[in-house]
């Protein structure tokens, strides 16, 4: 049951992403991507990470993608006819790279036999939080500092002179 769900969600994610990266309009790309990220959040949940799934929805699909939308609208980039979209030639190196990567992964995959997870350990929120604040306290502080710096930097870059 869970496995079926996983494969369906994986398909949704891949298709959504595929549409997102080939969309002619940036706004459409964002919407496809939000869709794909929802599916990804569900996958996270399936993998026993409810907290990460929640953050995925809140931060990625909610905040970051909205930020993108804001910028697109602020800069008035929503007109596909004024934007250059990649020609077919531009896709060639990308496709080559993707093929190489995919082939490598395929080669690696061929040697590896899928083994189901032996025993699933769901990670409770309590366990997650304990690890986060006890073992990685310093990292939390550093990340908060980093967010502060990003804030200052963004304000500095964005102010009008």
């Amino acid at each position, binding site marked *: 049951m869970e496995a079926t769900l996983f494969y369906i969600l994986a398909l949704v994610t891949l298709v959504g992403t595929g549409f997102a990266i080939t969309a002619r309009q940036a706004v459409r790309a964002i919407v496809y991507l939000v869709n794909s990220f929802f599916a990804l959040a569900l996958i996270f949940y399936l993998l026993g990470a409810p907290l990460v799934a929640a953050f995925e929805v809140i931060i990625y699909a909610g905040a970051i993608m909205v930020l993108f939308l804001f910028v697109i609208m602020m800069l008035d980039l929503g007109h596909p006819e004024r934007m250059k979209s990649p020609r077919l030639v531009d896709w060639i190196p990308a496709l080559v790279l993707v093929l190489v990567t995919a082939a490598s992964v395929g*080669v690696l995959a061929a040697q590896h036999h899928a083994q189901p997870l032996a025993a699933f350990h769901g990670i409770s929120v309590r366990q997650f939080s304990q690890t986060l604040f006890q073992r990685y306290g310093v990292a939390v502080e550093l990340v908060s500092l980093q967010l502060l710096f990003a804030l200052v930097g963004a304000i500095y870059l964005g102010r009008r002179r």
Partner: protein
Amino acid sequence: MTTYLSLMLLIPLLGGVLNALVGRNLPRRLAESLACAAVWGSFVCAVLAALAYRDPEKVVVATWFQAFDLALPLSFYLDPLSLSLCLMIGFVCGLIHLYSVFYMASEADYARFFALLNLFVFAMLTLVLAENLVLLYLGWEGVGFCSYLLIGFWYTEKENADAGRKAFITTRIGDTALMVALAWLFQLFGTLSITQVNGMGFLVPAGIVTALGLLMLAGAIGKSAQLPLMVWLPDAMAGPTPVSAMIHAATMVTAGVYLLARMYPLIGASIVTTSAIAVVGGLTAFYGASCALAQRDLKRVLAFSTISQIGYMMLGVGAGAITAATFHLLVHAFFKALLFLGAGCVITAMHHEQDIFRMGGLRRTLPVTFWCFLAGAACLAGLPLTGGFFSKDSILSALWIKGTPLSEALYFLGLLTALITAFYSFRMVYLVFFGSNAHPHVHHVKSDILAMELILIPLALLGLFGGILDLPGYLGGGFLGSFFGSLNGAHPVEPSHTEELALQGIAGTLAIAGVFVAHVRYGGAARENRLQESLLKPAPLVAFLFNGWYFDALYQALLIRPYQALSRVLWQQVDEGVINRGLDGLANGVGSTGSWLGRWTTGQVAVYLLSFAAGGALLLGYLAWRSL
């Protein structure tokens, strides 16, 4: 004793270093007195050491360095040989320092000069006192280095700098041989202590002892300017005269003789080695004397006479007469310093004219110099009852007593050389001091020269009465002989009194005969004829002798030319053609490759990203391929 020995070395070192570092900023008088005080202080230490001396003594001051089984302590060895040499060096060098103060009065770069003189003394004392062969080698190289700098003291003229280089490179040939000998000794015995090595000679086969002896002889040949490495000494006259006095009398050239005397207990066991030493000495003595016959430059005459006299010392070592060789070394130091310093007075008075055919009449202008120089010449000629007579005769009689055909042949060669020596010494005296006054303007004598002349007097006395140091047996026996009695191998068979008297009679007669011939040829009216002759083109034989048997030309043709040609090929073909061009090509290739690759940095983010991704893909592909 440790204190005396350390101070004896440290004081000149300190003086030299002080003069080298701050001498320029000191008042001239202070720098000069510092240098003189350093050497005299060292001499006082030597005297105190001599007063306290009882038995040969080995003193370890400190550990120099130690690694694995190589232990090199800073150790000194005081025995009659080193003690007498130290006293001589301190005294003669002290006088030369005093003399230099006046001789170099107009030299601007006095600090460098005195610093080097002090270092020279330090290096020589290190060489003499060292108990350790590596320490000895340090002093050996130090002496060579200081002599290089001092010979080329007036380095702004190319000739002087070349002379310095010649001295350095020529002696280096011998030094290399000595270095090989040291390494071999260490490999054989595991120690480089002179006393230990000397006592272990019987442990190794005779052939090895011979080879070691020959290597050391090669070192001594380089340092002591013996055949065939003697070419540097005449050119070393390019340095200031006090330097010449120091190189010839007290330091440097006697180092080779000292080394052989010091190592005699080891190398004396080999007949081949001692014969080689004797033959080299004898031939060199004859060579130097014959060349001195034809020289025109006052200092070159003295230089060739030094070569010749050092040859006598080698002859003495070769005959096994260490006492006699040391005796001659000491007396020679006194009278050769005297002759050089006298020559310095003459040259100063003649305003740096060195050609003896342009001198004359100085007997009246410089009376003190004349009498002292005469005393020195008498010692050099070996006139009876002078110090030089006794010392030279003790070497010759040792040769005669030894009684092998070789030593007898060398004895006759030595006698012939003695005759020539007497002749050229008085040729020099007659040309320089007698006759009419060639330079009428040399009348006023500066006070500096008077002070310099005063310094000659103690040396003249020591030279004349140096014979007292080691009187022959029939006059009650010598002080040195009994003093050196403890030295291994120092005592050859004592000649009987009558035999000794006869030998000395022959030598004395020959010396007087030489002086007489010189008088006939150069004295009185004949002197003018010789002056006239000197203006003509010299006879082939004279030219041959004048140019030192053309050894310089021979080396030029045999060694220097091919070497230069080889260097030119290496420089123009190999270095410029192959190495330079190759490097240039490489650099150009790298440069153009760089600028070609530089076009990659277009400044467009997309290109960078693509490159980065391609690199990542390559890595991934490689990993996948590896895991196949």
